[in-house]
């Protein structure tokens, strides 16, 4: 089978956030700094790609907290492999000196 194309950076950072233990939409938003309008569709997309699996929180826990159950996400083995692959790619980027590009501290 053909290898799927490399993931975009936003997708990688969301997979990374899930792998880091952030399993709910809002936690992932906090961890990645992305907006809800980006995070939720991307979670669905990654799920349809088979990189994430989702299920509903135990109804008893939700009832105890007087709120509807939440949907939370887990990494699938394919997702873990894709994330490892992507992280390797980013790690392979050799350090470059950006001084010459005159970046102000706030942009760095």
């Amino acid at each position, binding site marked *: 089978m053909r290898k799927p194309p490399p993931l975009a950076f936003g997708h990688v950072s969301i997979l990374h956030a899930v792998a880091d233990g952030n399993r709910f939409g*809002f936690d992932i938003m906090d961890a990645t700094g992305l*907006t*809800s*309008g980006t995070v*939720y569709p991307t979670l669905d997309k990654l799920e*349809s790609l088979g990189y994430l699996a989702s299920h*509903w929180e135990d109804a008893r826990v939700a009832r105890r907290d007087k*709120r509807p159950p939440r949907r939370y996400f887990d990494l699938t083995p394919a997702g873990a492999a894709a994330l490892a692959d992507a992280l390797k790619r980013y790690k392979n980027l050799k350090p470059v000196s950006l001084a010459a590009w005159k970046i102000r501290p706030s942009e760095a």
Partner: protein
Amino acid sequence: MNAHDEPRSRPERRRSRLLRLLLGIVDAGTWLAPESRRRDWRQQWRGDLMHEWQRRTAHPRGLGDRASLLPHAAGALRHAFWLRMHVRRLEMITQDLRYGWRLMVRKPAFTAIAVLTLGLGIGANVTMFSWIDASLRRQMRGVAYPERFVALNGTTRTRADLGFSYPDFVDYRAQKPDSVDDLVAFSFAPMNLRTDGDPQRAFGQLVSGNYFGALGVAPALGRLLGPEDDRVRDGGAVAVLSHTFWQRRFGSDPAVVGRPVTLNGRSFTIIGVAPPAFRGTEPYLSLDVWVPLAIEASLIGDGDRLGRRGVSWLEVLVKLKPGVTIARAQRDLDVVAAGLASAYPQDLGRGVALFELWRAPASGGPMVAAAMGVQMAVAGVVLLIACANVANLLIARAAGRRRETAVRLSLGASRRRLVQQLLTESTLLATAGGVVGLGLAYVTKDAVRWFIPPIPVPVVIDPSLNGSVLVFALIATVASVVAFGLVPALQGSLSSVAAALKEAAGTLTASPRSGRVRQALVIVQVALSLMLLISAGLFMRSLVKAQATDPGFSMRTGVLASLDLLPAGYDQTRGSAFYRDLLARVRVLPGVEAASTAAKVPLSFGGAGSFLVKIDGYTPAANEQIDVWYNRVGSDYLKTMGIPLLAGREFTDRDTPGMPAVAIANETLARRYFAGRDPIGGRVRIGTTTVEIVGVARDGKYQLITESPRPFLYVPAPQWYRPDSVLIVRTAGSPAGMPARLHDIARALDANVPLFDVRTTAQHLEIATFMQRMIATLLGAFGALALVLATVGLYAVIAAIAAQRTPEIGMRIALGATPRDIVSLILRQGLGMTASGIAIGLAGSLAATRLFRSLLIGVSTTDLASFGGTTFLLVAVAIAAAYIPARRAAATDPIEALRTE
């Protein structure tokens, strides 16, 4: 969570209002989410928002912290919209595809007919396109950056198809503007090539030293020509072989580099072999050998052309810098041309024009483009017929699915949704048709060789199903979906719910609207196929007439062979002696009735030579020019060709340069310019030479089998010497074995003079009718295809109409109609459509056939046999197509038919 139990303070009330607002946004957005995901989406957002709310309430950082959840709720709407755009569409397409696939499998006969029909139509177009594609990219195979090369033609006020002299080429290169990367020059050169055995004809190019470098061609073996080869005028002549020639002639021997080869009697050293993909830069030709332009003088022996600015004999290609447009390079080169025109008198009034390679006038671009346009148009008509056919089948099927459609509409499906589903089904069919078409094109693409004229040069057009052909196939497929799928889809979705649900499975009357559309489609098909058939008929009749036309000579068994003494270094005296010896030896061979030579054999491709003459005793009208075609022929020419001599004598071996100049006139010349006088002894002035007419020959066809009689002169070859000529040998019976004996004789006379383009008279005569044969074949094939498609269409529509009318027919039978009545009822309907189609087709043909009047031989554009014959054929086929469903309808069991009512 004590806050809920205590009496609410104002800030608390505000807080709960904010929460209600957040959840309200989610509730309000619910409709945005696609149905299938609505519940999950709502629950996910309510769950997450509530949880976050509670988290922020437990660690309060002010109300603003919680108010910042509002933009997130807006994100929920974006999420819902995203789901609608992505999930829903994906689900629908998969669903439609699955449904369409099930339909295709469930009705295998329908599917097979539709797919095959589309396959034939698409296949015909892809085949034609692959030929055109191969012809257009022919010239630049194996070249790096082919898209950057354009043709540079020389122009005068009235022409744009001129070549360049060598000094001009050198100047253009030296003054090349910034927009031009480089210029290369070359000239086509047929040569006699000899290694150790027999000499043979080879086709090559003289090329400028930068040729291979600028084209980006790398050697397969050894080295290619380089700039240093421009300086070698004499001695150390080198040659590069083409890959195919190296394989064919040298058995791919890697030791060939450094070996000598004799070209036109002069020794060259082979320095390398070009890569397999590269075949030179002559349109359509596959070349054998390349040699530097610098050795031109010693190879061609026509005097040194390299130094003469007035002789335009080079073709020039321009390699543009990346990203440069033709218009810009044209402007830049105009400046150079203007400079040269003012600097050299020979270049006065000369300009330049850049053309894309395929349409450069100097290499026949406009003619080829016109021929290709016709091919594509004919193939397009076939695809149109195919699409009309499938559209009809789909409408028929849609009629059977009206209840399904109505039910779906009443259950809330939108019309857009229905159209989308019907189009998905059409796309499935078209895709299958496209695949079948590609398969057909793969099989038929090599048929292009039937359409290459049998001329004595190595023409190569090798179509392949490459990227652009595949893209074309895709476009043809998509276009056919639009053509055949859109109308049925729109029509299918237009049925009114109430009417359709009320309708029982069958009714006494068919839906009038779909009936009309379908009949119109059939009529169009019949009309288009009749037009193709009539055109094909005209050309076939024309071919038969051409083959029956008397070409003016009676030789039917014999051999023709070309030879050229120039490369072997003969002058006129030795050359004339060679031809005399050759004819003397050939004439005594067993089985030879007569033999002669001629500069040109009648009915060859290529133009005829002509003289402007003055005739003693004939006063031309004002502005009248006497333009006479001529041929240089050897002794016994008329006897050999079997052209009757009406008066006087033939040329003999005594008509040599020392003797009085003589000529033989044809009937037309004698009658037109010697009215009432005896042409024998008459004098014709050709330039400064005056020739005496010694004989009159019967008229014949000289260039084209279609031409009308025209004045013609034969002059004796020894008095009008040229080193090249065609040896004509008339044999008593079959010419088998004769070519080998002729080769032996030529070799015995001079091993350096090869016979080439050896062919029998029968093969030669095929050339004469080649054009008619080619067009008749192409149109015949497409006409037959169109007839089959139209027949299938007619049959399908009549069968469907008959099936829809089953209850009505059952009623008629129950009321006493005989099977004959029923058959004629159905036949009448079929023939009505056919008649309308034929009427339109006949009118269209009358208009269309005028366009190719000049290509028809002895057949008028309104030829009764062609028009009548094809119309009769179409009517017969239509009756057959209608008769089968008519019989089936007549066999209807009235009880069965009425029970379904």
